[in-house]
C-alpha cells in the first residue's frame, strides 16, 4: 500500500469513490490469501483499520467497511470456505453496485445541467467528471473552471481528465474563485460525506467556494450517491479530519521556527444552507431531505445504523485474536 499509497494516504488526486474501489481491490486480494477463519478476520481487521485511519472522512469507505465487517461477523459459525466465498461475492457486488450507481447518478445529474453552462468545480471527483462529460456530449457545457485544489493539486488531474474528454477547461488557483465567479453559472462538486443534517464534508476549500457562490447567487449542486451518506452522524458521531503532511505542502524546512505551526486539514464542512441540491442515484433532494433518505436506505439494516465504525473495528479485532 505504501508505494501506490502516497496518493491514497494523502487523499491526493483520488476521489472518494476511487479510494473505496482501491480498498475493495486490496481486500479481495488479501482475503483470497487466507487459510482460516482467524486469519480471515485478522486480514479484514488490519486492512479495514489501515484504510479507515488514512481516510476517516470518507463515508463510502466507512459504509463499505461496515457492510463487509458485519457480514463477516454474521458468518462466524459457517465453514471457512463458505465464509470466504460469501465475502468475495459481496466485494464483487459492492464494486458492481458502486459502478452502476455512479453511472445512474451521472445520467440523472447531467439532465440537471442547463444549456450553455459555465461550470466551476473543485478537487477530483469521478462522479463530477462523468456527469460533466455526459452533459458535454449533449452540448450543454461551454466551459469548466477547475481549481488547483491545494494541498494535493488534484485539480490538475481533473483538468486533464475533462480536457481529454473534449471539454474547454480552465485551471485557476484556489484564491481566484471569487474573481471568476462572475463568469460561472453553476458550481458542481462531489462529496466525501454528507452528514445527518445535510452538511457536506469535502476537500478543503469547498466551503469557501460555497460561501462565495451563495453570496453571488450562483447555484451549487453536490453529487453524492446515498452510499456517501454518513449514517453514523445520525447518532452524533463526529467526523475526524486528517491533515496534509509538510512534504505534500512542499513547505521549506528552514521556515520551521519553533513558534511556527503549519496546519493543512484535507477536508472542510459546508453548511447545508449554501447547497441548492444534492443529487443521488435515487434522485434530487435538498439537504433537508437527507435524513429521510438515510432512514429509507437503511430500513431493515438495524446493525448498519446502530453500530459505529469503532465498534465494528474492535469486534473484528477481537475475533482475530
Amino acid at each position, binding site marked *: 500500500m505504501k508505494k501506490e499509497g502516497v496518493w491514497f494516504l494523502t487523499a491526493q488526486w483520488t476521489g472518494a469513490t476511487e479510494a473505496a474501489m482501491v480498498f475493495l481491490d486490496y481486500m479481495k486480494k488479501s482475503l483470497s490469501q487466507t487459510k482460516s477463519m482467524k486469519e480471515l478476520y485478522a486480514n479484514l481487521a488490519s486492512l479495514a483499520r489501515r484504510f479507515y485511519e488514512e481516510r476517516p472522512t470518507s463515508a463510502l469507505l466507512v459504509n463499505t467497511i461496515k457492510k463487509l465487517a458485519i457480514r463477516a461477523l454474521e458468518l462466524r459459525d459457517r465453514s471457512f470456505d463458505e465464509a470466504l466465498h460469501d465475502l468475495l461475492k459481496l466485494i464483487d457486488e459492492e464494486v458492481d453496485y458502486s459502478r452502476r450507481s455512479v453511472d445512474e447518478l451521472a445520467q440523472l445529474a447531467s439532465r440537471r445541467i442547463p444549456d450553455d453552462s459555465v461550470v466551476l468545480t473543485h478537487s477530483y471527483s469521478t462522479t463530477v467528471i462523468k456527469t460533466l462529460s455526459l452533459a458535454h456530449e449533449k452540448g450543454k457545457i461551454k466551459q469548466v473552471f477547475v481549481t488547483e*485544489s491545494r494541498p494535493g493539486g488534484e485539480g490538475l488531474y481533473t483538468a486533464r481528465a475533462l480536457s481529454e474528454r473534449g471539454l474547454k477547461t480552465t485551471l485557476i488557483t484556489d484564491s*481566484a474563485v471569487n474573481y471568476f465567479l462572475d463568469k460561472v453559472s453553476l458550481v458542481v462538486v462531489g462529496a466525501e460525506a454528507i452528514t445527518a443534517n445535510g452538511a457536506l464534508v469535502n476537500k*478543503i476549500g469547498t466551503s469557501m467556494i460555497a460561501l462565495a457562490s451563495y453570496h453571488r447567487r450562483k447555484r451549487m449542486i453536490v453529487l453524492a450517491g446515498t452510499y456517501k451518506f454518513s449514517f453514523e452522524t445520525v447518532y452524533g458521531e463526529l467526523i475526524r479530519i486528517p491533515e496534509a503532511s509538510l512534504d505534500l*505542502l512542499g513547505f521549506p524546512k528552514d521556515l520551521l521556527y519553533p513558534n*511556527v505551526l503549519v496546519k493543512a486539514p484535507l477536508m*472542510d464542512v459546508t453548511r447545508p444552507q449554501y447547497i441548492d441540491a444534492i443529487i443521488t442515484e435515487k434522485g434530487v433532494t435538498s439537504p433537508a431531505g437527507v435524513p429521510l433518505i438515510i432512514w429509507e436506505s437503511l430500513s431493515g439494516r438495524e446493525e448498519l445504523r446502530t453500530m459505529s465504525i469503532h465498534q465494528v473495528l474492535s469486534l473484528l479485532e477481537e475475533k482475530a485474536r
Partner: protein
Amino acid sequence: MIPKEVLEIADGIKTMRIRGASLIAKSAAQALRIAAEKYSGDASGFKPYITKVANLLLQTRPTAVSLPNAVYYVLNRTLSSSVSEARETAIRSSDEFIRMVDESHRRIMEYGSKLIQDEYVVFTHCHSTAVVDIILQAFREGKRVEVINTETRPLFQGRITLRELAKNGVKVTHVPDSAVRHFIKNANIVIVGADTITSDGYLVNKVGTSHLALAAWEAGIPFYSAAEFIKFSPASLEGGEVVIEFRSASELLDIYPEGLADELRRLGVEVLNPAFDFTPPELITAFITNLGIIPPQLSVLIIKEMFGFSTGRIQLTVLEELV
C-alpha cells in the same frame, strides 16, 4: 539631457529591482529631485524638462498606482509655480513627498497596532510590510498577539510574512489559501495590505483577499486594510479602470511534476492567473491610513486631502496616452 542617476532609477522600477509601493514612490520622487538639482539650463526650459523626466518615469510601470501619485505630487506643484521658482519647488516638493511617505508608514503602524488587543489572533494574506510592522509594533508593546497567515499561491509570498514574524518571536499558524474559511473562526481581526484603492472604496489586493473578506464578514470578524495615502487612486475618481495583471501559467504549474504540466499544455488546458482581485467596500470595516482609521466610503476624502480632485483627470489623460 536626463542625468544618469535618473535613468538608473527608471530602469530599476521598470525591471522590478525597485519594488514595493513605498519604495517605488520614494524612488520616483528622488529621481525628480536629482533631475531638478542637476539641471543646468536656463529657467524657462525647466518646466518642459521636468515634464519630460516625469513622463519617462510614468512609462516604467504604468499600472503601479504609487508611481503616478509620486510623480504628480511633484509635477503639479512645480508646473503651477512661477518660472523662477519652479526648480526650487520641484526639489522642495520631492523632499516633502518622501517625508510624507515615511511619516505615513509610521502613523499606520501606530494606529493599526491600537486595533490589536492583548491575546488577539490576526489573520493576514500575502505579504505587506505595513501589516508586518503593525503586528510587530503590537508585539513589542507586550501584547500576546498570534497570527494565522496563508501560503498565498502561486508565488508563496505568505512564506515571507511567516519568516518576518516568526524570526521576531511571533507565533504563526500557516495555512493553505483553500483553508481560509475553515480557520477564520480562530481569528479576532483580519488585517491585509493594499495594492490600489479606488475612489468608491474598492480594495484591489493580492488575489484571494476577497475570500478572506467574505469569510470574515460571514463570521462577524472585522476586516481592515492597511493603506498609505499613495495607494489611493486619483485616476479612479475620473472613472479610470484598475487593470488586473494576469501572470504566467508556469507560476501555477511549476511546483508539479514536469510530465503532468506538459500534458496539460499539450491538451490545451487554459491557465488563468490573475495577480489581484477586488474586495467591495461593504466587506471592509475600514482602511488604516496615515489620516486615521477611515471607512471605505470615505476613500475619496484621502484623494482630495492628499492629491486634490483635479489630479485624477490629469493622471488619467496622461495614462491613457501611455498605455
